[in-house]
């Protein structure tokens, strides 16, 4: 609906190339562009405690939307 067949095939090819590189332990040829903006990123085998800590650090960069509060 939003992508042409050519765009979709390109995206799938990039995913396959990344998967092959990952299995070989090589750097990804098409890394996530947002990774360099996120210093809190943890490895895939991070422990639950590491993920929890990472979430708190990430929220400092990208906090959840705040609600509006009033006093009656």
């Amino acid at each position, binding site marked *: 609906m939003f992508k042409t067949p050519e765009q979709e095939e390109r995206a799938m090819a990039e995913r396959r190339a990344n998967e092959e590189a990952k299995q070989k332990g090589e750097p990804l040829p098409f890394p996530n562009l947002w990774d360099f903006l996120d210093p809190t990123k943890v490895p895939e085998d991070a422990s639950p405690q590491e993920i929890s800590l990472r979430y708190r650090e990430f929220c400092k960069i990208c906090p959840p939307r705040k*609600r*509006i*509060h*009033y*006093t*009656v």
Partner: protein
Amino acid sequence: MSTSQADSLHRLADFKGFLQGLQDIGVEYSVIGGQAVGAYAHRLGRESLSRDLDILAVSEAMERALLWAGRSGFLVRKRPQPRSIPVAFLEWEGREVNILTSSAALTDPAAVFDAARFFHVGDDLAVPVADPFDLLRDKLRVNREKDRPHIAILLDFVAEEAVQAFESETDPRLRLTPARKLLRVTGQRFLPAELARRLTERARTRADYRFLADVDEAFDPAITPSQWLDEVTEILRKR
């Protein structure tokens, strides 16, 4: 229920005990209807009282609320019936509470709750009240004669938000957000004249002038800073 109690008008705080109970059992809901409008009216220094309390909740939340209400001794006058309007009527301390799972333009109670604003009543109670733009959309969809005063209050409230955004926001998009939402909700092409005038007085950014050139029917390009005059003139030409 006595006639005087049935006819008396209330503020949101008058339902504090009931709303505190919902909060204590963790029910997600949003106040809608007249009490919601009254909460925003109060922010404008006005008063808009309503006889009953309308709250919007997902079906599961309604069930939890009804279970709690029954166990707490509240009178459940009507439970939602299959294949009929999903609404339950309760009586709490002589006051009517309506629990709905859908309204004219508020068809996603979870989304309404996510956007709701919290009105703090006392130290311990935070009452989720539907966003004024959601309320306005709903009232305009129904558009009954009795809703006209509520629509007027909500329009005034969101207009003040639009002015406040021009006063205090620095992000070019956030400055325009309330005014844009007002146009989307009302379906109008142009801003109300008085609001447009107030925003024009406070225009500062390139985005402000571009926006006003598009949505202020009486926009005068002569007020535009010279560096943006060409693009504003183009917007006026295409309008």
